[in-house]
């Protein structure tokens, strides 16, 4: 019971962190169709911006300013880069963002150095909020939960309930029609991309001090975000949210259960010894592959249900 409750909390926090990163990519990738490989790089930029800003004016202004800066960068990328290459197809867009990822990494190394920077949790939130069975639950985690829940609510309401949101949805699915109705479609694309990168920046501000702010953080965060978005289904914010929480929980609980395929076979009376074919594979325990489960699940869901969990169209 103890382990279960604590793991549930852990999984929820991790899932919400994933959602913070994935929500921006959902806008960019699943709505605009841009395979944005620079998304995790913007996440990194957000963390570094927040670090530098917090040196001068503190964490709270950084929480606003850093995402805004990232959003501006995103708008610039869309206006001067993506818009030009859009007609050359997805591979061109992907390569553009890939090139940007390389450049951002090097620029970060040249500006902030190769080592991690001491970007710390603000003192106001640096205390244990409560204890569950002797395990501290830091206030900062609660803050992360709050922010990502707010993010989800804001994006959902923004897309569903506001005029701008409706126009955005129309422009993304039927650009010609929206344009014919007098909406400035390129500007809407810029807006969506900027919003997506700003969300990545915000995730960086929050995640940078929770994890470690270093030049490799983009490299390690990259693939998993795509997995979450695709698993949740393209074009669906709710799917993305559910997928994030699911991925968080599944990785957390995988750690708890120490079982392997060999144990499963033992249930059926088949003993696995060193000489059994594929003994090495059969003896792998669940915790060892816990972090790989998202990739496995993504492959499986795409093979059998290409629109993902709640997607509105095929991937």
């Amino acid at each position: 019971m103890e382990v279960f409750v604590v793991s549930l909390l852990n999984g929820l926090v991790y899932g919400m962190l994933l959602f913070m990163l994935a929500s921006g990519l959902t806008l960019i990738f699943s709505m605009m169709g841009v395979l944005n490989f620079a998304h995790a790089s913007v996440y990194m930029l957000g963390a570094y911006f927040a670090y530098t800003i917090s040196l001068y004016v503190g964490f709270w202004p950084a929480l606003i300013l850093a995402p805004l800066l990232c959003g501006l960068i995103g708008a610039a990328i869309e206006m001067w880069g993506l818009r030009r290459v859009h007609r050359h197809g997805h591979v061109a867009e992907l390569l553009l963002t890939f090139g940007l990822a390389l450049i951002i990494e090097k620029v970060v190394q040249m500006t902030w150095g190769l080592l991690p920077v001491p970007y710390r949790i603000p003192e106001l939130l640096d205390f244990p909020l409560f204890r569950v069975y002797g395990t501290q639950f830091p206030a900062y985690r609660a803050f992360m939960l709050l922010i990502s829940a707010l993010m989800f609510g804001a994006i959902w309401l923004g897309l569903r309930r506001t005029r701008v949101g409706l126009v955005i949805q129309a422009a993304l699915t039927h650009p010609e029609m929206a344009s014919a109705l007098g909406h400035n479609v390129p500007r809407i694309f810029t807006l969506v991309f900027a919003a997506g990168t700003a969300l990545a920046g915000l995730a960086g501000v929050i995640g940078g001090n929770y994890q470690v702010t270093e030049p490799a953080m983009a490299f390690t965060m990259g693939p998993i975000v795509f997995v979450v978005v695709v698993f949740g289904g393209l074009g669906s914010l709710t799917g993305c949210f559910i997928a994030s929480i699911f991925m968080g929980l599944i990785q957390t609980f995988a750690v708890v259960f120490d079982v392997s395929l060999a144990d499963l076979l033992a249930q059926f009376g088949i003993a696995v010894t060193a000489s059994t074919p594929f003994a090495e594979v059969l003896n792998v325990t669940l915790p060892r592959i816990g972090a790989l489960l998202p990739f496995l699940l993504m492959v499986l869901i795409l093979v059998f249900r290409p629109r993902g969990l709640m997607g509105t169209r095929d991937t």
Partner: protein
Amino acid sequence: MTLLRRNWPWLVALAVLLAFPFLFYDWTRGRHSGFALTLMSEIGVMAIFALSYNMLLGQAGLLSFGHAVLFGLGAYCAAHTVNLVKAGTIWLPTELVPLAGGLGGLFFGFVLGWLVTKQRATAFAMITLGLGELVSAAALMFMGFFGGEGGITIDRVMDTSLLGVRYTSPWQVYCLVLGWAFVAAVLMRLQMQTPLGRMANATRDNFERAQFVGYDPRRVRWMQFTLAGFFAGVGGGLYVMIYEIVTFDTVSAVKSANALLAVYIGGAGAFFGPVLGTIVVVLLQSGVSLLSNAWLLYVGVLFIVMVMYAPVGLAGLIGMHAPLWRTGRLRELLLPYLRALPPALMLFLGFVLLVELTSFTTIGAAQGKRFAIGGQTIDTTSPLPWAIAVAALGVGAFWLRREAHAFRLRWDALMEDAKRQAGAP
């Protein structure tokens, strides 16, 4: 004889490539440059790999993020085969080791392809991304087949050569790579003209119509994927012959990305595009990285410039000159090109100088390096070099814009003429 007349570029290329390493020959010590030969062998291997990648991307329109899985698994198969041959369990001529890699790639292409090719477009890309991650994680976890972190090492010196060559020197290996690269390229070129190759194009261009013709697009994708796996595996087998080791890096996403970059930079539309792209990518990675630790930044900038200004790739750019060449008016472009050269060079050098100055002030200086040009150390703290860099960048950009405009006018006029000439009887 007509075969020879039509295919002379292939033979010329082969001759040039055979002669090329002698440019780096160390006459005083009487030996080849191992560095140059290894680099050229690497280009050969990566060229096969990129060509096989283009069987997916260019021919079938399938964007894969995990092609290195087939390359790497082929390499592991080849390595195990060599070790079996060394142990005397089986017999295989040294020259056919890459074939063992190819068969490995074919097998895994068939098996994994069954799963992967169920989908196309973005879903295909994402499945390959996931598979790539899974296989590269597995390569570290399982010692039996992958040998763990240390990988599988081999000794390529075997007594089973058909030609009596022992492959002790990089030169002999280079010849082997060249031979196989040539064979593989010819086969891949021929494959394009088979019904399968044509159908791959059809499923790429119009998915529904291809179905109506009576072909199962899934099956076309699967066969195409399997064949691409074969050629990737041949590349993997050659990789083993060059480095005599295969580690988990060969299946990694980095390797897959390299193939994608090479194909795109070279141009997916032309058969030889990926080869050109490979040359650029490998030289950037292994050549420029020796000179500058900011090389990744240059790579990034190159991609962006290519994607924005030359989405057809290098081969596409060259191909655009074909109508002028046919009408014999290519000469008239010489002057506009020459005029655009100085500003382009200025822009390029200004940019390089600026990046290097920044890199040396922030990272390079701490590594104890000096920023030297022609033996003269440049003081990165003085304003002069910075001013020169910025000025060169600005002036170069402005000047190039003007020249580009003039060039554009001339180009359009020439193309118009060429079109008219071609139209006239």
